[in-house]
C-alpha cells in the first residue's frame, strides 16, 4: 500500500500545541522512561517520528496518544526539550478533531475565538430560551411546586433530549475512531469474541483510570479520578433523581449526601488543576492550551452556580434561586453541548475506548503471531 506523507503535518499540529516536535533527535529516552511504553505500543518517540515524517494516515489510526496520561516524566528528561508529553497531548487534541465528522472540533482547536464565541452564543440562546419558557408557563417567585419557574419535570425532558443528542454525536465519532484505528486495518483480524471478552476493560478504565496510577506521581491521578467520579455522580443524580434534588423544603439526604460530596469534589479538583496550570507546577501543567482553560473555567462555573442556586433555594430566596438556575444552565448547556462532543471533555469516551481497542488489537496481533509461528518454523526447517 502506498504511504502518503503530508509534509505540512508538523505545521498543522502547531495550533494544537505541538511546537517542539522538530527538536527530537530520537534518542529513545522518552519511550524508555514511560511506564506505559510496552510492546506493541512503544511511545512517545514513535508518534513523534510519524509526525516528523508527516505520516498523517498512520497517526490518524494511532491509539498510542490515548495511552498516555501525561505525567510529564518524558518531557522532564528529554535532552532536546522536544516536549514529548505535550506532543502526545496535542495529538489527542488533533485526533479528537479528526474523529469529529462535523468539523466543529477542528475550528475550536484552530482558534480559541471560535470556541469562546460558540460558548457565548449557546449561553445567550440558553438564557433567552429558559427565561421565555419560565415566564410563559410559571412564576419567577416559585422555585418548585405547581407554579414553578423551571419545573423539574420539564428540565428532565430537556436533559434527556440533550443526552440523546450528545450520545448520538459521541457514538458516531467513536465509530469513526474505531474505523480509523481498527476497522480499516486489513491486516488486523480480530474476532467478535475478542471484542466481547475484553469489553469489561472499558468499564474498568473508565471508572478506575488504573493505568494513571502507574505514573510515578500519584497526586494527578487522584485529583483526576476525583473530578471524574464527582462528575459522574452528579450526572447520575441529574439524569435520574432531578425531582428529588429540586424538591423542597425538606432535604432528601439520600440524594443530597451524594450531591454535596460531588460538588465539593468538582470545585476542589477544578481549583487544584487551575492552580497547577497557573503555577506551571510540573511538566504536565507547563503548557496550557486555550481549550484547557475554557474547559476548567466552565466546569468550575457550573459547579459554583449549581451549588449557589441550591443554597438560595434552601434559604427560600426563590427569585434569586431561579435566576441563578438560569445562569447555571447558561454554563451547563454550552459545556455539555460543545465540550463533550467537540473539545476536551470528549476524552472521557475516547481514552477508555482507546485502551479497550489497544488491548483488543494487542490480542489480535498476538494471535496472528502465534498462528504465523509454526509456518515460520517450517520455513526455517
Amino acid at each position: 500500500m502506498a504511504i502518503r506523507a503530508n509534509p505540512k503535518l508538523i505545521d498543522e499540529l502547531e495550533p494544537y500545541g505541538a511546537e517542539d516536535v522538530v527538536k527530537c533527535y530520537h534518542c529513545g529516552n522518552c519511550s524508555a522512561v514511560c511506564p506505559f511504553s510496552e510492546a506493541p505500543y512503544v511511545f512517545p518517540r514513535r508518534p513523534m517520528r510519524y509526525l516528523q515524517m508527516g505520516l498523517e494516515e498512520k497517526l490518524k489510526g494511532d491509539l498510542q496518544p490515548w495511552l498516555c496520561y501525561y505525567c510529564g516524566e518524558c518531557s522532564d528528561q528529554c535532552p532536546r526539550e522536544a516536549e514529548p508529553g505535550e506532543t502526545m497531548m496535542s495529538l489527542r487534541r488533533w485526533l479528537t478533531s479528526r474523529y469529529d465528522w462535523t468539523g466543529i472540533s477542528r475550528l475550536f482547536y484552530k482558534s480559541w475565538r471560535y470556541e469562546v464565541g460558540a460558548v457565548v452564543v449557546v449561553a445567550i440562546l440558553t438564557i433567552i430560551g429558559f427565561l421565555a419558557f419560565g415566564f410563559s408557563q410559571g412564576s419567577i417567585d416559585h422555585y418548585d411546586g405547581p407554579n414553578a419557574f423551571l419545573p423539574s419535570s420539564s428540565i428532565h425532558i430537556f436533559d434527556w433530549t440533550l443526552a440523546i443528542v450528545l450520545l448520538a454525536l459521541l457514538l458516531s465519532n467513536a465509530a469513526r475512531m474505531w474505523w480509523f484505528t481498527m476497522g480499516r486495518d486489513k491486516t488486523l483480524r480480530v474476532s467478535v469474541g475478542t471484542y466481547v471478552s475484553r469489553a469489561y476493560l472499558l468499564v474498568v478504565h473508565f471508572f478506575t483510570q488504573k493505568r494513571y496510577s502507574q505514573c510515578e506521581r500519584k497526586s494527578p491521578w487522584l485529583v483526576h479520578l476525583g473530578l471524574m467520579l464527582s462528575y459522574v455522580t452528579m450526572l447520575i443524580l441529574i439524569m435520574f433523581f432531578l425531582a428529588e434534588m429540586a424538591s423542597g423544603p425538606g432535604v432528601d439526604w439520600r440524594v443530597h449526601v451524594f450531591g454535596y460530596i460531588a460538588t465539593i469534589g468538582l470545585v476542589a479538583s477544578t481549583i487544584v488543576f487551575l492552580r497547577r496550570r497557573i503555577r506551571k507546577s510540573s511538566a504536565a501543567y507547563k503548557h496550557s492550551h486555550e481549550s484547557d482553560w475554557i474547559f476548567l473555567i466552565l466546569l468550575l462555573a457550573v459547579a459554583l452556580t449549581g451549588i449557589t442556586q441550591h443554597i438560595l433555594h434552601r434559604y427560600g430566596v426563590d427569585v434569586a434561586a431561579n435566576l441563578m438556575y438560569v445562569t447555571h444552565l447558561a454554563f451547563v448547556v454550552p459545556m455539555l453541548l460543545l465540550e463533550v462532543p467537540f473539545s476536551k471533555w470528549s476524552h472521557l469516551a475516547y481514552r477508555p475506548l482507546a485502551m479497550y481497542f489497544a488491548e483488543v488489537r494487542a490480542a489480535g496481533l498476538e494471535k496472528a503471531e502465534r498462528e504465523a509461528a509454526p509456518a515460520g518454523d517450517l520455513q526455517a526447517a
Partner: protein
Amino acid sequence: MRIGVFICQAGIAEAKAVNLEAVGLYASNLPQVEVVEVLGLLPKVDPDEVAKRITESQLDRLVIAGDSPGFFKPAFTRAMSLAGGEPDEVRLASFRQYGADTANSTERAKAIVACAVYGVPFSLAAVPAQTKMHPASLVIGGGIAGIQAALEIADAGKRVYLVERTGTIGGHMAMFDKTFPTLDCAACILTPKMVAVGQHENIELMTYSEVESITGSPGAYKATVLRNARRVIESSCVACAQCSDVCPVSVPSEFDAGIAKRKAIYIPFPQAVPNAYLVDEASCTYVQSNGTKCGACAKKCPKDCIDLDARGDVVKLDVGSVVVATGYGVLDASVIEPYGYGVHPNVITALEFERLTNASGPTGGRIVTKSQRLNKKTKAEEWVFDPEGAPPRSVAIIHCVGSRDRNYNPYCSRVCCMYSLKFAHLVREKLPDAECYEFYIDMRAYGKGYEEFFQRIKQEGTFVVRGRSASVSERDGRMLIKGEDILSDRVLEFPVDMVLLAVGLTPTERSDQIAAMLGIPRDQDGWFTEADYNADPTGTERGAVYVAGACQGPKDIPDTVAQASAAAGGILKGIVSGRGVDSLGSLSLEEIEARAKTLVAG
C-alpha cells in the same frame, strides 16, 4: 569627490552580526558622502536604477559595504559604466575579510567602510601597536597540548616556561590505556615526550605551580607564577618510596580517577615528570596540625629531601607570548540521577574504566566488577576494585552522558563515541566471553580511520544499539539497564554486570579565571574563543596569546597535537619577526579613522 555608499549583506548570520542601520548612519556623516543606502540582506540590484542614482547625485565613487560585497560588484560596476563613471571607482568594504562578522562587530564594520570611503586599504589604516618580541614563551598547562607546544618551541631553540598545576606533566593522556583508532599504548607515545620536556635545556618546567597574573602587552608580557610548596626537594628526590610507605594517611588518587588510594606524600604515577614526590597539604597530618603531629616521612627519608615546613614561592617571568593549554574537566555523572552513578557500585565513568583497564592501574589491567570489603578504619562496607574480583559477564556502555543534552551540556563532546568503541574493543579483547552493548544516539566516527574502527568493533561482536539508554537500576546485585532500541522499535530492559558512562567533557573549573586573567573571551559553553574559527583557530583576541587543545573545545589527541604545533608555529613566527603585534581588537574606530585620514593627506 562625491561618494555613494551601498550596504548589502549576503549571509544571514553575518547580517545579524552587524547593525547595518548604525553603519549607514555613520557613513552618512563621513566627508564627501552624498548618498547612503542600506539595502539589507540579498537585495536585487538593478544596474539601470543605480546608474540613474549615480547620474542624479553626480557620484564619482561607489562603496559597496557588506560581508561579501564582491558578490554585488558586477551590478554596481555595470551601473557605473552605464552612468559614464569610472568603473575603478567601485570600492569594496568587506566585513568578512577584516573580521567584522562576529557579534558586536559594528564598530569594526564602520572602520572598514570609512577606509573604503577615504580610498585607503584597511590593512594600511588599521595597524595595531607593535612591541619588541621577547624570545621566551609561557605555556600554561602540561597535558599533551602543552607538552607538544613546549617541545616544538624549545626544539627551535627558544626558551619555554611550562607551568603545570599538578605535581606532574602528562595530563589526562597519561591516564589513558590505549588511543583510538590505532590502539597504540597512550603511555608509549606520551612518556618519551614527557621525559624530553623534563630534560630539555630550553624548557624550564614548573610543576605544582599556577599562573597568578599576566600583565603587559604582546611581545612583552610579565607573568607572575605561584610555585606551591612541594615540600620535597625535586632535585634530590630519587623516588625510593620509603616516605609514602610510612605515611599513615590514605586518600583517593586523582591519577587513578579515585578508584585507588594514594598517600599524603606521593608521586602521581611511577613515570611522573619530574620524577619526585610531593606532599598534599590538604591531607598531610603534619601540615594540618601545624607541625605538632606525625612527620614520619621526613624522619624516614634517606636523602633528607623532605622539608615539611617549606613555603611556596612567587616567580616573575618575562615572556613574549603565551600558549593556553589548560585542558578540560569531565561532567560529574552523579548529577544525572537516572543513571545512578555513586548509588550503584558497578556504574562507573569513562576515566575510571581507563584506569581499571590500564596495566599500570590498581588491578593491573584486569577488568573486574567491584567487590565489597570491610574498611577497618571506618568499620563500613566499601565497594572497591579488587584484582581478584569477578570479571563482568556483560558490560553496557552508555553514550552521550550529559552531552547533546539541554539539561546538562548542549554540545557534542566529540571524543565519547570513539573512546566508547575503544572500551568495547578492550572489553572484548580481555574478556572474549563477555557481552558488550553500546547504547548510542548517533555514532560520530568522523575522523581518519574512525568509521573503519566502528565497523571493526561491530564485527568483533559488540552489540550496537541505536537509542540512548534512559536509566540504570539495581536488581539482584546486577545493573538493570533500560532503553529504547529505536531501529527495532522496542524497549529493552536487561541486566548487565557493569555500566560504563561515556561522560562528556566540560571546561575546567578555573577557565573563567584564566579567561579573565588573559583577557580572552569564552563561548556560551565556557570554552576559550579562538580569533577566527576557520582562518586562525589557535590565535585569540589578545595578541601573542594562543590556545591549544581541549581548552578551546572538546577534541581528541591528534587534533590537540596538531593545534599545539600550530600554536607553536604562531609563536615562532612572532619570535623570528621580532615583533609582538597587538590584535585588531585593540584598535578603536577613532584610531583607524584618524590614520586613514593622514594616509589620504599624505
